[in-house]
């Protein structure tokens, strides 16, 4: 399959008072057209950084010492902001976590969506513009768009506001939609609706979506493939079924076990310790010191991506032939 987006061995560094932060440390992934790829990890693992590097919304001081980003066949790694402006919105657009701050409180919803449409097609007549705005609002599931369009963001609930943000993101029919924690600020009761909407849009417009989240439970609903990130690296990637029913990386096990739905014998598992600082990342596997299954080699050498199946890869030495056999604490038939 042709990839709409390809990230190859991407490394991003940021200067900080303590030293250089290695925010991303060799991330590689592909995004196929029309799929939902979920990126899951704790805060500070670099998942938002990855979205920002793709969109080129990095701080000015950020450097990309190595790696490539290929979008729709073109290498955009060294694109200037001017070049990027032509791609943003048309090729890819982004939905942010907080729908409260993403919208302008002093203008009606209709005006804000219209603005996004006008930027990409400035020659639209007034009627066509209005029709397009109504079409977008219907697409994201806002009923009675004629009346609701005249309202201001503060008239809307969190879920409705997130729909407006999505309408703006979809204004120019992007091929790639980057959703950075789109449901985190919302109630549990609204989360499923927004995820279904993402899925529906992806079906209708054939948009490829990158869905960033910290909650494996939330992601299960929408994701076709799941990538688990830890300390600036992708540690496991596979189809949703492979990740949920047959996880291989100890970090994925930990994330799954810390969900209350899977708390066994009344005790909720917690991953001990904190994610490492990325100023001077430890040698070897960054997860080793929090990993109860760590092997001696984990402290010396970072594991490569081991192949489990054609779609499923995991970076843990446990998959090496010489490693002792470990029974995973989770997965398999238990909740299949």
């Amino acid at each position, binding site marked *: 399959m042709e990839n709409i987006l390809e990230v190859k061995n991407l490394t991003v560094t940021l200067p900080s008072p303590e030293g250089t932060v290695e925010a991303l440390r060799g991330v590689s992934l592909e995004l196929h057209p029309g799929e939902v790829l979920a990126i899951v990890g*704790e*805060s*500070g693992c670099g998942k938002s950084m990855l979205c920002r590097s793709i969109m080129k919304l990095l701080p000015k001081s950020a450097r990309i010492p190595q790696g490539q980003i290929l979008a729709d066949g073109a290498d955009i790694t060294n694109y200037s902001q001017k070049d990027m402006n032509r791609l943003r919105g048309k090729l890819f657009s982004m939905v942010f976590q907080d729908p409260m701050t993403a919208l302008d409180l002093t203008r009606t919803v209709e005006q804000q969506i219209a603005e996004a449409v006008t930027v990409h097609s400035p020659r639209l007549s007034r009627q066509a513009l209005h029709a397009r705005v109504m079409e977008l609002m219907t697409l994201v599931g806002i009923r009675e768009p004629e009346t609701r369009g005249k309202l201001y963001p503060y008239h809307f*609930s*969190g*879920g*409705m506001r997130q729909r407006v943000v999505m309408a703006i993101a979809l204004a120019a029919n992007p091929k790639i939609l980057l959703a950075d924690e789109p449901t985190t600020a919302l*109630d*549990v*009761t*609204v*989360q*499923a*609706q927004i*995820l*279904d909407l993402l899925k529906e849009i992806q079906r209708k417009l054939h948009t490829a979506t990158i869905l960033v989240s*910290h*909650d*494996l*439970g*939330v992601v*299960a*609903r929408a*994701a076709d493939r799941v990538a688990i990130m830890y300390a600036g690296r992708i540690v496991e990637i596979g189809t*949703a*079924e492979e990740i*949920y029913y047959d996880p291989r990386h100890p970090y994925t096990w*930990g*994330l*799954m076990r*810390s*969900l*209350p*739905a*899977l*708390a066994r014998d009344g*005790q*909720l*598992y*917690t*991953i001990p310790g*904190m994610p490492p600082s990325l100023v001077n990342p430890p040698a070897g596997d960054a997860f080793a010191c929090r990993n109860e299954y760590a092997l001696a080699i984990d402290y010396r050498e970072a594991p490569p991506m081991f192949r489990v199946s054609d779609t499923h890869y995991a970076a843990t030495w446990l998959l090496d032939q010489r490693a002792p056999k470990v029974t995973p604490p989770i997965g398999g038939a238990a*909740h*299949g």
Partner: protein
Amino acid sequence: MDENMDENIVTVRHLTHRFRLSRKHTLTAVDDVSFSIRRGEILGLVGESGCGKSTVARCMMNLYRPTGGEICFNGINTCDQRAFRANRKLLQTHRQLIFQDSTSSLNQRMQVADIIAEPMRIHHIRPPRGSYRQEAAFQLHYVGMDESFLDKYPSQMSGGQRQRVAIARALAMEPELLVADEPIASLDVSIQAQIVNLFKHLQQEHGFSILFIAHDLAMVEYLCDRIGVMYRGKLVELAPSRELAENPLHPYTRLLLSAIPTPDPIRERARPAVSFDEMTFPTQGTLRECTPGHWVLMP
């Protein structure tokens, strides 16, 4: 509900709170809510945003003056101004509050040691362990952090660590009642698990009571002894956690339970999404006991 003073640390009777939006409009955030918190129990309060659960917490902590009803803490009616003034010190030390957003609830310009010791300084409590600093270090240990954090500023810590500091600050007063208003909502799932386990552990060690407010029913079900479900300002169901999860009686509780996401793609994709915006549930009636300990709002 039970009038027994020894058993209940807090009794809330017919609590009502209205916000005036304009001269003509008022919003009834909390509407005739009655419940009690037993000694040494963790009571969970769940509901969507805007259902009034935070308003209940704020009324309980005297941050809002309720429009009607009364709240008794250890037999003191905290809504009564005179009773409140007479017992101010007791009420302010024995009840502690933890907020959702640790970034804004901790002073950015204070170091951790000062943040934790501040309530003791305010109430002129002599630190039982020598100095304020030693006391702060002790409390930090309690929440699973070491002394190296004493001289840090909130901005130098992660969200989970800041929330631990907020908990340590509340614990420094050795409260009898801890009100936690969405303490885990802004944290990562793995950190949420740490904080929830910490609450459970601390409650077992200290034996204080906790009112735990959250919108995530899954975590509440795991942590709490009893759960109250709120909907549009009303308490619609109150039952022991297991009973509520296995035998929900109010239609809103059933919907809320069905909205919990499961880490299982096949089952999760099959689960229909329910639109809560268009649904309305009966909010009329009184809370009645169906089976022992299981209260449901019935018309």
